[in-house]
């Protein structure tokens, strides 16, 4: 089959690889119909995720048709159309039983690697490094899906791929970012990053009852998407204005009730701190550039919540712990527990409360994935979200 393979920094290629096989009794094999390039795939692409090896099949946002079913699978059969959550979760361990699927205790066979870096291991993830299990990803014609009774959900007849696909990651991830803010009526929510996850966090903040949402980015087309498609109240271009001053103006000096970091480890900024972080990262003195995160902490109102859904990999520097501690802030974070959100969000789509396809700007064939990565990375042609079809 054809699959998108990571071949080193800024190098992905569509290669011919063996077809997937059933390896565990709860596996299914899918024929992938639609898959997408995620912002977190760009962290792999840029070489910031440890534990990648040449030839790894990438991709963790995908859906398709069940072709083959393992002997222990009960809920799915050949021909079912499903969308698959990106964290692999067993459904039986203590974490899964508490709906903390992205920290499943059983789904990372390379847990020892993650333990060395992070103390304990989270769940395995499709196509996202050997540190997170060494599972082949879904930017491919076929993919093996473990724990098929736990993760995938059936897509209702008549719902197009483009409406269901983002239940695999970015819609639930953005939604969890807003959910962690514990939004109450009257709340003002600021979101750093108007990429696809940021847009879903903004839209979800409104779904959960926020009064006003403010979007922060540096690309005018992304801020425009936030205004037009996520209906945000205000936007701030951080290359044109001081984010902290502007947020204080917009919130009567209080600061936003909650701040969502939908940027993560490769943040940019116009300040000297950006040059500092860039240099430290290049010298391997810190792994992540927490520019958006620092700003989110400083901006947040006293007693407010900072919700982190942008991906971080390792260690950060100059974290404003004093601000966090002295002002009674709460930090909430995590890879999304997608399995928890899929069904309720599918119902919201069915009720017409949201149509997730609003983030798509580019539709390419799987063979064109390398062009999609390059375009997404360099924000060419106002690229927001690339969907690949087989």
């Amino acid at each position, binding site marked *: 089959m054809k*699959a998108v*393979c990571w071949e080193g920094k800024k190098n992905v290629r569509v290669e011919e*690889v*063996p*077809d*997937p*096989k*059933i*390896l*565990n*009794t*709860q596996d299914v094999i899918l024929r992938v119909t639609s898959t997408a390039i995620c912002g977190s795939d760009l962290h792999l692409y840029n070489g910031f995720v440890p534990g990648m*090896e*040449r*030839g*790894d*099949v990438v991709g963790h946002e995908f859906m398709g048709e069940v072709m083959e079913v*393992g*002997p*222990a699978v009960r809920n799915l059969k050949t021909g079912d159309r499903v969308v698959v959550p990106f964290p692999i979760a*067993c459904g*039986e*361990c*203590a974490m899964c*039983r508490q709906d903390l699927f992205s920290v499943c*205790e*059983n*789904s990372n*066979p*390379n*847990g*020892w690697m993650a*333990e060395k870096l992070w103390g*304990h291991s989270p769940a*395995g993830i499709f*196509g996202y*490094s*050997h540190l997170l*299990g*060494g*599972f*082949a*990803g879904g930017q491919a014609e076929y993919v*093996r899906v*473990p724990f098929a009774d736990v993760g995938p959900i059936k897509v209702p007849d008549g719902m197009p791929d483009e409406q269901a696909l983002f239940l695999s990651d970015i819609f639930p991830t953005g939604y969890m970012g807003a959910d962690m803010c514990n939004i109450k009526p009257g709340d003002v929510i600021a979101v750093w990053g108007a990429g696809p996850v940021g847009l879903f966090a903004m839209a979800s903040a409104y779904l959960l009852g926020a009064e006003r949402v403010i979007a922060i980015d540096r690309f005018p087309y992304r801020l425009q998407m936030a205004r037009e498609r996520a209906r945000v109240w205000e936007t701030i271009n951080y290359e044109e204005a001081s984010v902290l001053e502007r947020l204080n103006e917009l919130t009567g000096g209080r600061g936003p009730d909650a701040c969502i970091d939908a940027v993560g480890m490769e943040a940019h900024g116009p300040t000297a701190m950006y040059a500092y972080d860039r240099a430290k990262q290049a010298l391997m003195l810190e792994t992540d550039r927490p520019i958006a995160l620092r700003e989110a902490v400083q901006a947040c109102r006293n007693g407010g919540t900072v919700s982190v859904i942008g991906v971080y990999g390792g260690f950060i520097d100059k974290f404003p712990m004093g601000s966090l501690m002295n002002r009674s802030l709460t930090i909430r974070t995590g890879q999304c527990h997608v399995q928890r959100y899929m069904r309720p969000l599918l119902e919201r789509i069915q009720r017409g409360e949201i149509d997730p396809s609003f983030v798509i700007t580019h539709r390419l064939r799987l063979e064109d994935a390398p062009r999609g990565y390059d375009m997404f990375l360099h924000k060419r042609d106002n690229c927001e979200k690339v969907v690949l079809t087989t």
Partner: protein
Amino acid sequence: MTTATHRTDPGGTSQGLFEDPERVARGLGWFSIGLGLAELGAPRGLARMIGVNDDDDNRNTLFALGLREIASGVAVLARPRSALPMWNRVGGDIMDLALLGRALRADSSERNRVAAATAAVIGVTVLDALTAQKLHAGTRDGADGKPHGGIHVTRAITLTRPREEVYWFWHDFENLPRFMEHLESVRVLDQNRSHWTARAPAGTTVEWDAEITDDRPNELIAWRSLPGADVSNMGSVRFLDAPGGGTEVRVELRYDPPGGKMAAAIAKLFGEEPSLQLSSDLRRFKQVMELGEVVRSDATVTHGPHPARPPELDEIPDAPRAIEQEALEGAIR
């Protein structure tokens, strides 16, 4: 998961200076670093002090010896309870003595000074060797033939299954190879005895008979190898109620690695870390208890490294067979 890897405390009583060989080792480590810094920083003065000619050759030699001295000092301080860095120091001392012997014969040397330096180095060599021996003795087999030294690892894991079920699964030693990667097979011989076969480095296998030394239902199983084992070893597993429900499993293993300490140190360089091995075994144990099978990924199902892409069928010789067997076991349950 909690972890600990440590050596057994030095056994036996001793007197005087060597009551605490670890402290002596630390002292020697710092001495090593100090001497090394002097060799690097003041080679001329040092050359004069030990009575050798202050020429380029000798200065370069002193520079190299300084680097070696610092490295060996750091190694001793990093593992002051380990005999290996101390033996390494003894090796360095012998090298120094050989160089001083050559200097004694050289015409350009001041023989009295060289002789004094040689005497000092001999003194240090004796101290190093005694310390190394003492540290080594603390980790050697005891008189009772039990594995006292070598490797001692403890690890713990928590499962959602009830204590009784976990105990009975482990109690059937023939289940152990399902999650202990290095075990090829365990055959139960009678109520107390079993025959174990394990994979060893370089494609070899090691075998031993073991007996159960303690067995308290739902609480504890302990075993040890019988005399004549290829690898003498002992182990125990404790089962406790986890505070939030489920079972805590605490495993302790002691064994003398095949090929001795050197082989163990080399194996460690190639990633065969005993505590990591036990930790991965317990991860698979949890998977088998909670899910009925070991979780496989594209990169971990093959023998040896493999990218995260579907393997060819002939790269996974045991997978289809294993799945059929697991399905069968699932059906029986």
